[in-house]
């Protein structure tokens, strides 16, 4: 019996592989977008009281996340609601997590009730109808609690597919010791930034103003700040234009930096990069407001060296973009969506925020962003600077109107193979962006979208 099974497995596997491996792989990996539609806004509309009732009734839900504060949050939640049991699962960070989530949703079972989803990935899960529209629980009434940019980020079309967990308005983190050593002023505009890059690299060829070896998250945020809107989605119609005014405005600044070798090619988040944080060979980092938590937990060697300044702009007027940030969403597979939604509400609109902030998270809620004890808190890692003053100000100056692609995760994975080549060759980034766009148009049309048609 067992051996018979085994043989059948193997033979079947062999035949499948030999004859149709390629089609199966395509079928396995693709087919995520396009099919189905976000038609879950109908149905019975439950009130916020229904969520309270679900909490009272209790039950068990599973929550997938890689948020560092998740353990503390879940513990606090179960103390507050002893009837509810939350299974906390760290299924991976970023792409690992998404692959597993996608597999479980496709398989029809095994998906969590609540999952962390980054803003950039949300359309990819919301459009095929994998997520519960939280308007049916009346959570759309919470709009005024959040910053406009994060509130927009949790919407796809009209649907509300999560509550913002954090936000990542961008700022410039700079190594003050390096700037002081070479007598360089902290740049306020991109022109000054370029000048600083030249001066620094000329003074010591080992020093770089920053690193960029082709990071799609950084690129999209930079285009965002420059006012570009390269991706627009309307139902199945998708427009991709990476040659729009904003994109060109950014490449006009970034091209010289890359072409003259003024930015280091160290890949972000590599161990070399963490070394750079600690030893000052990378002088600035332009990232989201969640960055202080990363500094403190991962580069204790750089303590005292770093400061925060507003992100440089094109005209000296404050303007920034979001970079990173996540929401918690309720997966349609959930057997207890009301309880799951209640948990999400607690996490990102209730008592879950406090443990999140204690672990160095940066909030999306207006109340916490305005809280003087948060805003004015001196940060010893940054030499006592009140970093949140800079970061909360950034939250107010996010350029409006941005949206991500409905297949942004895929787009990110091919960025290195297309646009990334321009960084290595130190050639024109516009050509790289065009190559990225061509690949994306092709892929989107294969997935059943109407891209640039």
């Amino acid at each position, binding site marked *: 019996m067992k*051996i018979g099974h*085994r043989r059948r*497995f*193997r*033979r*079947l*596997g*062999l035949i*499948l*592989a*030999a004859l149709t*491996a390629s089609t*199966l*792989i395509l*079928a*396995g*990996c693709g087919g995520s977008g396009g099919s189905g539609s976000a038609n879950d806004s109908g149905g019975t509309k439950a009130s916020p009281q229904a969520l309270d009732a679900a909490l009272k009734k209790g039950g068990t839900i599973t929550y997938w996340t*890689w*948020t*560092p504060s998740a353990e503390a949050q879940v513990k606090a939640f179960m103390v507050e609601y002893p009837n509810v049991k939350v299974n906390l*699962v*760290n*299924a*991976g*960070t*970023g792409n*690992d997590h998404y*692959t*597993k*989530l996608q*597999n*479980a949703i*496709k*398989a029809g*079972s*095994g998906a969590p009730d609540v999952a962390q989803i*980054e803003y950039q990935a949300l359309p990819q899960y919301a459009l095929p109808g994998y997520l519960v529209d939280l308007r049916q629980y009346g959570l759309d009434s919470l709009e005024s609690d959040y910053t406009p940019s994060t509130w927009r980020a949790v919407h796809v079309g009209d649907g509300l597919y999560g509550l913002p967990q*954090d936000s*990542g308005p961008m700022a410039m983190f700079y190594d003050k010791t390096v700037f002081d050593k070479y007598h360089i002023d902290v740049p306020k505009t991109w022109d000054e930034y370029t000048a600083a890059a030249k001066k620094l690299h000329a003074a010591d060829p080992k020093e770089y103003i920053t690193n960029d070896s082709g990071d799609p*998250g950084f690129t999209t945020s930079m285009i965002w700040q420059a006012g570009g809107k390269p991706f627009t989605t309307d139902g199945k119609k998708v427009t991709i234009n990476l040659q729009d005014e904003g994109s060109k405005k950014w490449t006009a600044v970034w091209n010289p930096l890359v072409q003259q070798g003024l930015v280091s090619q160290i890949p972000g*988040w590599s*161990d070399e990069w*963490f*070394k750079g944080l*600690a*030893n000052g060979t990378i002088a600035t980092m332009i990232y*989201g407001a*969640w960055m202080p*938590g*990363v500094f403190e*937990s*991962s*580069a*204790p*060697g750089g303590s005292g060296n770093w400061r925060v300044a507003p992100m440089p702009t094109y005209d000296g007027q404050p303007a920034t973009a979001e970079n*990173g*940030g*996540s929401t918690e969403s309720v997966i349609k597979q959930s057997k207890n969506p009301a309880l799951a939604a209640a948990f999400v509400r607690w996490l990102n609109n209730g008592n879950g925020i406090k443990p999140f902030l204690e672990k160095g*998270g940066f909030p999306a809620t207006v109340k916490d962003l305005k809280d003087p004890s948060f805003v004015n808190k001196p940060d010893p890692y940054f030499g006592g600077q009140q970093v949140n003053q800079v970061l909360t100000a950034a939250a107010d100056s996010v350029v409006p109107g941005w949206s991500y692609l409905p297949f942004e995760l895929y787009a990110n994975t091919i960025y290195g193979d297309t646009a990334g080549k321009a960084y290595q060759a130190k050639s024109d980034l516009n050509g790289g962006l065009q190559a990225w766009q061509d690949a994306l148009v092709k892929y989107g049309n294969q997935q059943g979208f109407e891209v640039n048609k």
Partner: protein
Amino acid sequence: MTATMSPEQAQPVAVESTGRRSSALRPGKSRVLTGVMVLYVIYTLIPLVWLVISATKTQTDLLSTAGLAPGHSFALFSNIKETLTYRDGIFLRWFANTLLYVVVGAGGATLLSTAAGYGLAKYRFPGRRAVFAVVLGAIAIPPTALAVPTFLMFSNMGLTNTVWAIIVPSLVSPFGLYLMWVYAEEAVPQELLEAARIDGAGEFRIFWTVSLRLLAPGVVTVLLFALVSTWNNYFLPLIMLSKPNLYPLTVGLTQWSNQAHGAGAHPVYNLVVTGSLLTIVPLIVVFFLLQRFWQSGLSAGSVKQ
């Protein structure tokens, strides 16, 4: 693990080729070849040395001191302790999972390959040639290419996210089967089987008491191959499992390594490095214990006709 295999493999080859050139029985000495060997040994050992040294460093030292230089403090024991207790000691759980997958998966694969290879070598039955073709074909297909179809099949059967998703595919080892087949052809004389049959032994008894002993070096070879490939199995569990409780060490450590990324990044490189060191220790031990069998298994069959 190739690092520890390679010197073993390379040595007999080098000796053999010098011997042939001087066409004498005494092994010849060649400075060039010795030099190449030394370089090769250094090349294969440096990553291991790096791993051992790095496992003694704290997260801060890992990022601030040179790779092969010692850190400012000797943190091996605190690293080990932290690795074993991090996130409620999930490392130990992964270790136990890996052991389970290896014992059942690699053990089962060895047993099945041995029995099947022996059967194909020593019995004549219709369809033998077809099986031969299928096995040869199976060796040519990398397991990675089969991972996605296997996932889809298992997903339809509702077996993903169970230990069977890892164990069942690792039971299949076409290469092991082929090796045992070829080995059994040579190592078990037909005359011996006939003698045993005349003495009245049944086929199973012959297999267990007579043939298996003759096949021992081959079995160890297959076991070692299966052991290493199951121990290092990464892609299959990566796509099959989404419950961290079922992860083997490979996937678990990658998860730790990947958490140094993006918002909420929390790098634990010291634990990844220490965990990797702890992960390869059992394999090294097994190699030392079994290498004698393994070597004789490699060369057996090469001269006997």
